[in-house]
């Protein structure tokens, strides 16, 4: 139903908007620029921005060559494959001029004039300065070229018609460079610029409407990404203890905060790349985000976790979870945070708890980092449902979640993006 409405709406908008908005000219291909044609400091700056933008996360397959594309990004309407953004002239962006790259970032239009899906977060990238977009261009054009075709998107007709995106853009896309807020200091402004711009935090942490656009009046109020719940980063933050900018900075760089817990799901990769970003930028992001969140934790801190819960689920918790999350487990004894401090158990939706039970937190290669096994094969849907409810009861002072069983089924089937 949702898809039908969506298609109809986009079709209508595209017609009303007219062909002018839908049509863009190609920008002439160029001979791929040499590495030497870019200044080293610009490339270095581009590396930082590309890391904050997480380009590699979407544009690299598991175990594949960096930036060579091919990773399927699940969206509510189907799978969109990230493209090859290495400077390969045939399959990558080697023939893209700086102007073509700028247009793609600012307007979501490919070099050949076709529309890009907003899985590429150009509604955020449009807010970056020309200098920064150029730096990212310099960085990408000095990567190793990889000849690798991108698989075609798996979208139902007529959503595979890119022309519909003209309508989407008319409705939701407002190209504009970010402007500093003189009320705040430089660090806050740097953070705001990175978060709203290249960092595109809202692409996951802001709720999206039925047509996949961010709800601009609920920026960072919590959203969904790849089936995971991305918690609110503003006044609705479910964190049990308030996030300080110091704790946030540490979390963003290591994927772990001793007062909160470990990054999981799509956030893990974000923290892995932020580990490579200069401290001052991560600090700025942390300062800006922390400023959006309450200085004192909302409800959870005051209301202690409840006792009780399903005794059968308590047995499962003791045997499956207790070796790490039990009160006297070695992990707790060495001072790592209780589940009660995590955003997942205190969130308005059970989605993060369900996802982490199903899929865990994968082992990170070569680097000491939080790990949790997935329980997908070990526990049935009914058991995960009972366990999810039990965890909510035992570790959060908040009301029970509803429809946990349906959420489990949805997450298990890989849906729910």
């Amino acid at each position, binding site marked *: 139903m949702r898809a039908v409405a969506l298609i109809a709406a986009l079709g209508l908008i595209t017609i009303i908007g007219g062909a002018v908005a839908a049509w863009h000219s190609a920008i002439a291909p160029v001979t791929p620029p040499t590495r030497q044609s870019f200044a080293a400091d610009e490339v270095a700056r581009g590396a930082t921005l590309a890391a904050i933008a997480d380009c590699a996360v979407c544009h690299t397959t598991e175990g594949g060559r960096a930036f060579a594309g091919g990773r399927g990004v699940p969206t509510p309407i189907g799978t969109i494959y990230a493209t090859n953004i290495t400077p390969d002239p045939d399959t990558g962006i080697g023939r893209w001029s700086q102007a073509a790259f700028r247009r793609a970032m600012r307007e979501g239009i490919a070099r050949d004039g076709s529309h890009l899906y907003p899985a590429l977060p150009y509604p955020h990238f449009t807010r970056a300065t020309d200098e920064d977009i150029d730096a990212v261009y310099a960085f990408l054009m000095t990567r190793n070229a990889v000849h690798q075709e991108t698989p075609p998107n798996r979208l139902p007709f007529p959503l595979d018609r890119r022309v519909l995106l003209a309508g989407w853009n008319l409705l939701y896309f407002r190209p504009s460079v970010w402007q500093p807020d003189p009320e705040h200091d430089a660090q806050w402004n740097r953070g705001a610029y990175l978060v709203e711009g290249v960092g595109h935090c809202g692409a996951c942490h802001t709720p999206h409407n039925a047509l996949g656009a961010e709800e601009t009046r609920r920026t960072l109020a919590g959203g969904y990404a790849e089936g995971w719940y991305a918690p609110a980063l503003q006044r609705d933050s479910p964190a049990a203890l308030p996030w300080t900018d110091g704790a946030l900075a540490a979390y963003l760089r290591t994927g772990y905060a001793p007062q909160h817990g470990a990054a999981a799901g799509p956030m893990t990769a974000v923290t892995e790349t932020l580990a490579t970003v200069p401290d001052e930028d991560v600090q700025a992001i942390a300062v800006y985000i922390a400023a959006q969140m309450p200085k004192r934790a909302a409800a959870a801190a005051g209301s202690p976790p409840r006792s009780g819960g399903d005794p059968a689920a308590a047995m*499962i918790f003791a045997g499956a979870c207790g070796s790490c999350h039990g009160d006297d487990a070695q992990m707790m004894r060495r001072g790592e945070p209780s589940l009660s401090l995590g955003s997942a158990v205190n969130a308005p939706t059970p989605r993060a708890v369900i996802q982490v039970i199903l899929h865990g937190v994968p082992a990170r290669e070569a680097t000491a980092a939080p790990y949790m096994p997935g329980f997908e094969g070990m526990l049935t849907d009914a058991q995960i449902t009972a366990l999810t409810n039990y965890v909510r009861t035992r570790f959060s002072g908040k009301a029970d979640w509803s429809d946990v069983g349906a959420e489990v089924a949805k997450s298990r089937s890989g849906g729910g993006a």
Partner: protein
Amino acid sequence: MAVLNVNGRDRDVQADLDTPLLYVLRNDLALNGAKFGCGLGQCGACTVIVDGAAVFSCLTPIAALAGRRIRTVEGLGTEQAPGTVQKAFIDEQAAQCGYCIAGMVMRAQALLEKNPHPAEQEIRGHMALNLCRCGTHMRILAAVRRAAAAMGTAENGAKG
């Protein structure tokens, strides 16, 4: 007190319901195959198959196992008549200390039952949850490939 279906037989077990399956297999049922490695789901030495999926028995309490089918390495074959995957491990001499190997066999078995012709990357990705410290990785991978080929042969043989 619980009834567990292990290798096709219902077994009465006197153990608390929070007891991880591993301890029941080893101590109550005297099955040596699944090993304690970490108790944290990090190494896979305890891997068994439950309802077709490879699981960490160290983190699967028996409370979760009523009515489910549990298979251990003992259920695949014997020294005299090893199963296809077991035989492949023997043929490749895919063990050094061998402590991880029963878990490796079970994880490989689960893969090949679902995907009889896995690509190399699929094998490596699937086996990634199990650790080996002796560095027997190349032989374990060879054994999984050999088992896949043997199963393929058996399949074709059955068809032919």
